[in-house]
C-alpha cells in the first residue's frame, strides 16, 4: 500500500479491496465499464450540443451537419450512439452478475439504486433516440406517449406534461432534449455517485469472507486498462457501423414497419396481444417490482455473498433468468417478425 497521500480519484474506492472479488474474471468489470461509457456519453453528448438544434425543422439537418460536414462529427455521433447502446447491455449484464454472484446480499439499498439507474439508462436512451426526429423515432415517440394516456386518472395530465401540449410537436422535442441533456443526465450523475459511494462505504465489492486484500492503486490500474480496452472497442465499432438516421419524421406518412428501439421491442410485442394499460404500463412496472423484490423475498439469506451461483440464492437466480429470457425471447420475436 502506498505511503503517499492518496490522489483525489483514488477515493472512489476504499483503501483496500477483497482481492478475489476484484479480479476481472469475477466482475467482468461491468460496473466500471458502464461508468466509463456514461462518461464517454457525457463528453460526446456535450460536443454534439454545440451543433444539434432541438427543433422539428432543425433536428435532422443539424444531425446531418454533425455526420457529414463537421470534422470527425461522424465519429463523435457514432461513438455517442454505440456507447448508449452498449451501456444498456453492460448495465443489464452488471445486474445479472450481481444476482448470480449474490452481490446484493447485505446491501439491498444499493440494489434499488442500481435498478433506478437501469431505468434512467433506458429513459436516457429513449429520449436520445427521439432527438433524431426521423421516421422511426417519430412513431416510437407517438406510441410511447399515447401509452401514458392509458393510465387511469393521471394519464392525460401526464401526457400533457411529457408532450408539452395536446399533441406531439416542437414543445415535445424541446422537453425531450431538456430531459436528455439535463434532467435525466443530472439524476443519473447523482445516483451513480451515490451507487459508487455505497459500494465504498460497504467495503468495496461484496466478498464472501476474510481473504487477502488488494490496494486501490492496483485496482485503479486494472480499471484504466479496462477503460482503454472499452474505448478501443467503442472506436472500432464506430469506425465500421454507422448510427442510423432515417427520413424526417412526418406524422402524415404511411410507414410499413415502425419499430420501437430494440430495448423496448418486448413491450411492442406485448402490445400486440394485451391492452395498452397491461402491456405498456403494468407489465413493465411489474418486472421492475419483481426485480426490486428479489433480495427482499426470494434471496434474503446472506449466506453465499460473493459466490457465483450460490445455493441459497438459486430460486432468485432461476426467477431472474426466466424473466430475462422471457424479455429476450419477445425481443427476438419482434426482430424476426
Amino acid at each position, binding site marked *: 500500500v502506498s505511503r503517499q497521500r492518496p490522489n483525489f480519484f483514488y477515493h472512489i474506492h476504499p483503501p483496500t479491496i477483497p482481492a478475489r472479488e476484484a479480479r476481472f474474471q469475477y466482475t467482468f468489470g461491468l460496473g466500471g465499464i458502464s461508468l466509463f461509457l456514461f462518461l464517454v456519453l457525457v463528453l460526446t453528448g456535450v460536443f454534439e450540443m454545440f451543433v444539434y438544434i432541438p427543433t422539428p425543422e432543425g433536428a435532422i439537418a443539424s444531425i446531418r451537419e454533425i455526420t457529414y460536414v463537421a470534422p470527425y462529427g461522424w465519429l463523435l455521433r457514432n461513438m455517442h450512439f454505440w456507447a448508449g447502446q452498449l451501456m444498456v447491455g453492460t448495465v443489464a449484464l452488471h445486474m445479472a452478475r450481481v444476482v448470480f454472484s449474490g452481490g446484493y446480499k447485505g446491501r439491498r439499498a444499493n440494489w434499488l439504486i442500481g435498478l433506478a439507474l437501469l431505468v434512467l439508462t433506458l429513459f436516457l436512451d429513449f429520449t436520445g433516440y427521439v432527438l433524431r426526429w426521423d421516421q422511426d423515432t417519430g*412513431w416510437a415517440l407517438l*406510441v410511447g406517449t399515447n401509452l401514458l394516456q392509458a393510465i387511469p386518472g393521471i394519464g392525460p395530465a401526464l401526457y*400533457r406534461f411529457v408532450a408539452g401540449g395536446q399533441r406531439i410537436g416542437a414543445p415535445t422535442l424541446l422537453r425531450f432534449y431538456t430531459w436528455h441533456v439535463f434532467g435525466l443526465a443530472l439524476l443519473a450523475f447523482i445516483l451513480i455517485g451515490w451507487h459508487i459511494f455505497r459500494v465504498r462505504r460497504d467495503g468495496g465489492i461484496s466478498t464472501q469472507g476474510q481473504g487477502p486484500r488488494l490496494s486501490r492503486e492496483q485496482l485503479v490500474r486494472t480499471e484504466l486498462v479496462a477503460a482503454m480496452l472499452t474505448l478501443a472497442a467503442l472506436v472500432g465499432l464506430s469506425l465500421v457501423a454507422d448510427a442510423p438516421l432515417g427520413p424526417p419524421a412526418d406524422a402524415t406518412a*404511411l410507414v410499413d414497419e415502425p419499430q420501437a428501439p430494440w430495448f423496448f421491442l418486448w413491450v411492442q410485442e406485448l*402490445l400486440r396481444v394485451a391492452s395498452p394499460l397491461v402491456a405498456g404500463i403494468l407489465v413493465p412496472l411489474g418486472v421492475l417490482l419483481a426485480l426490486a423484490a428479489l433480495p427482499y423475498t426470494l434471496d434474503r439469506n446472506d449466506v453465499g455473498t460473493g459466490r457465483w451461483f450460490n445455493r441459497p440464492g438459486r430460486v432468485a437466480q432461476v426467477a431472474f433468468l426466466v424473466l430475462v429470457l422471457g424479455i429476450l425471447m419477445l425481443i427476438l420475436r419482434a426482430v424476426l417478425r
Partner: protein
Amino acid sequence: MSVARLVTRFTEGKRDGAARAGRRQFLAWLARGTLAGAGAIVVGQVLRFLSYQPASENTTIIALGQPEDYPPGVHYVRAAQTYLGRDTEGWYALDAVCTHLGCLVEPAKDGLFSCPCHGSYFHGDGRVKTGPATKPLRHLYLWVDQDGLLTVDRTREVSSTVRLLL
C-alpha cells in the same frame, strides 16, 4: 407538548429552565414550520409553471380537394390523415389514426385496413376485425365548403353509415 402550552410558556416568559426549554422548542418548531411552508409554496408554484401549456395552434378543419380529383374507391389524403372513400352510396371520410395507440393504418387485402405497429385489422367501414384495437376507426364529418372543396373536421365524429351526397 401541545402548541397552546408552548405559546403560553413563551408569552409568560418565566425565567425557569423548563420555560426556556419550552421557548427554544417553540422557536425551533416555528422555524421548521416556516421553512416547510415556504418550501411547499415554492414547490406548488414550480408545479404550476411546469404544467403550463402553450396555446394549441392546430387546425382541425382540413380541405381535401375537388371532388372530381377522387374517382370511386378509397384514397389516402396525407394532409388530413384521412381515407376519403367513395362508394355507390356516396362520400365518407375515415380517420387513418389507429384507435389503439395512434399509428396510421394502411390499406390491406380485401379492402381491410391494417395497423403496422401492433397488427390490428379493421374492416373497410372501420369496424375492428382483429385486435389489439377495441374501438372502430372514426368516421369524420365531411362536407363541401364554399370554394367547392371536400373538407373534413377531425374533431367531429359521425356514424359509419353517414354519406355525403353530391
